[in-house]
């Protein structure tokens, strides 16, 4: 890949650019190939020997600059894709960190990454306002990630000759940079792959998604920052001063402006162009646009949902008050009929007191309404649904927390799955829109939406709106 060779940035130290261009082509005293582009016709050097091989590499194959024929490649094209990623990747990283914070991993039951150490330095109490906050941040995270896939692929394509650069290692700094680029490329592909698989429920990656995607992001971002630091001067130089329009107007294969140093990307013997630079950029843009069109609807919701033709949540589960997206069904997580039947009871605990309530008793308490969405880490979300039920703070008051209730530990009848219990923070319990919901859109909750009772909290990640709630423990270790 783009083995960030600092010398190519023109900040070079040891060896100037002058001896670079002919290095690989004339090594061993062989004249530059005059052929018809096929490296096969290059006369084999007779007096190469092992040292010659070390210096010039194999006579044919991807280590030879002539092997790469595309007239599109060059620092300008790479810089154009790089500029898009330079904006996109930090947005992905920040929205990802926000999603991590939204899970309140510093609270007992929520922690999937107890070893995070300083990587959670920025954690803060996730707010409940605006109530669509998580819908927005996670919708952007997932949709943008998907949309950037073609750009990432194009960027990697544009720099692939550098993967085969010869000699493979030129200096200590070069070796370190190549290692860093392995982390960069491996990290990017690892993050995109785990993300794309997870949103489609294809859990083939080696372990739990949360630690893999979170720690993987930190491994990646370290290499990303180094790469940006080394490469940004070249990128700015390439794109500065209206270069964009100039290059787009120019046919492929001929740079609008002289490139001071191709950085090993410009083909020395280009094939005839079959697409213009404008065409190549447009094609990648068309790929991104198509992905946007077939995915964004699952995060926007409403009548837009049907446009998300390939997104996992592009279909509505059915009509009626409970006809909105289900994260995981009751059957899917092993809820049995007797867990949520007439014998179901809610146990409230706090401040040394305990209350046990039936659903009828809960319905007899003051009922409140709140219009709140379900927003999933997978990027999909629903429009606001009209929930009704008992305020969490009213329930806290029943067990000895009449004012300023503490956080609450929520447990579900769910027998398996990593989100069968949750800890909510005090700011979430105190919000008047935070409910133990019994009904939605004027009807009882359906079994798949958490009957007999579920938590619903504004701006809370979907899986923390625990369904089939059996026990609420206020304070005490939260």
């Amino acid at each position, binding site marked *: 890949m783009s083995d960030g060779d600092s010398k190519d940035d023109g900040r070079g130290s040891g060896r100037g650019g002058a001896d670079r261009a002919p290095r690989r082509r004339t090594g061993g005293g062989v004249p530059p190939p005059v052929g018809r582009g096929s490296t096969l016709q290059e006369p084999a050097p007779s007096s190469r020997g092992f040292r010659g091989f070390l210096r010039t590499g194999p006579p044919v194959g991807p280590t030879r600059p002539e092997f790469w024929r595309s007239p599109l490649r060059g620092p300008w094209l790479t810089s154009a894709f790089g500029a898009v990623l330079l904006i996109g990747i930090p947005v992905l990283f920040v929205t990802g960190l926000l999603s991590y914070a939204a899970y309140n991993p510093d609270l007992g039951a929520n922690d999937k990454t107890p070893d995070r150490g300083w*990587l959670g330095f920025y954690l803060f109490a996730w707010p409940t306002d605006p109530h669509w906050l998580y819908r927005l941040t996670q919708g952007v995270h997932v949709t943008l990630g998907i949309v950037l896939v073609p750009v990432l692929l194009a960027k990697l394509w544009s720099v692939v000759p550098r993967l085969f650069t010869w000699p493979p290692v030129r200096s200590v700094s070069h070796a370190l940079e190549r290692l860093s680029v*392995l982390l960069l490329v*491996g990290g990017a592909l690892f993050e995109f792959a785990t993300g794309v698989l997870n949103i489609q429920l294809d859990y083939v990656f080696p372990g739990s998604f949360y630690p893999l995607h979170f720690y993987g992001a930190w491994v990646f971002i370290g290499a990303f920052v180094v790469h940006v630091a080394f490469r940004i001067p070249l990128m700015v130089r390439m794109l500065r001063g209206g270069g964009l329009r100039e290059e787009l107007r120019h046919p492929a294969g001929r740079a609008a402006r002289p490139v001071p140093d191709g950085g090993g990307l410009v083909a020395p013997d280009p094939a005839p162009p079959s697409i213009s630079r404008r*065409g190549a950029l447009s094609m990648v843009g068309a790929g991104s646009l198509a992905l946007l069109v077939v995915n964004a609807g699952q995060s926007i919701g409403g009548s837009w949902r049907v446009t998300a033709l390939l997104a996992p949540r592009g279909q509505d589960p059915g009509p009626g008050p409970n006809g909105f997206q*289900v994260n995981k069904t009751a059957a899917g997580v092993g809820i049995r009929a007797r867990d949520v039947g007439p014998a179901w009871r809610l146990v409230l605990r706090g401040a040394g007191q305990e209350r046990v309530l039936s659903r009828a008793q809960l319905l007899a308490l003051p009922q409140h309404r709140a219009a709140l969405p379900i927003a999933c880490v997978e990027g999909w979300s629903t429009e606001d649904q009209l929930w009704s039920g008992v305020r969490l703070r009213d329930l806290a008051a029943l067990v000895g927390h009449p004012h300023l209730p503490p956080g609450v530990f929520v447990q579900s009848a769910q027998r398996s799955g990593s989100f069968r219990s949750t800890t909510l923070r005090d700011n979430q319990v105190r919000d008047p829109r935070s409910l133990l919901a019994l009904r939605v859109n004027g009807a009882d909750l359906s079994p798949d939406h958490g009957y007999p009772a579920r938590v619903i909290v504004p701006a809370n990640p979907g899986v923390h709106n625990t369904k089939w709630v059996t026990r609420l423990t206020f304070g005490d270790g939260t």
Partner: protein
Amino acid sequence: MSSFATRYGASPLHLLLVLCSFALTGYAGIRLLAGDRPWAVVLWFVGAALLHDLVLLPLYTVTDRALRTVLDGRPRHRADDAGSRPSRGRINYVRVPAFVSGVLFLVHFPLVLGRVDHFTAYTTLPGDVFLGRWLLITAALFGLSALVLLLRLWRSGPRARHR
């Protein structure tokens, strides 16, 4: 300083930045590999790069080259042969829809190929619609491209005849 640069190959600032990054990588990497299957994670991390660089990229490059040979006839060898006008061949009318359809497949293959057995059990949604949808989108993309090509041919036709 300059002797350092000669031996190391770049400025000390370069070394500091790389070491700083590696330290962070180490800190996060230990945690990334702390699960039950550390080798599987390494395999995924490095394998993703190798799979892309040595399989996916060569595969689509070769496909593109084959397509070019088929559609543009005898391959011309040098840029000069073709003049400065790109896209003389009509390859892009195939290339662009194929690329778009390809990235849609690459991103959505788990659902398109029906790999996710528990999809309906988890979501209540039918999981067998995606292959058909992807094929229809692909058909629409190629169809649209054909329409544009027809339009171009039709519009350039009379002029070409008058010349």
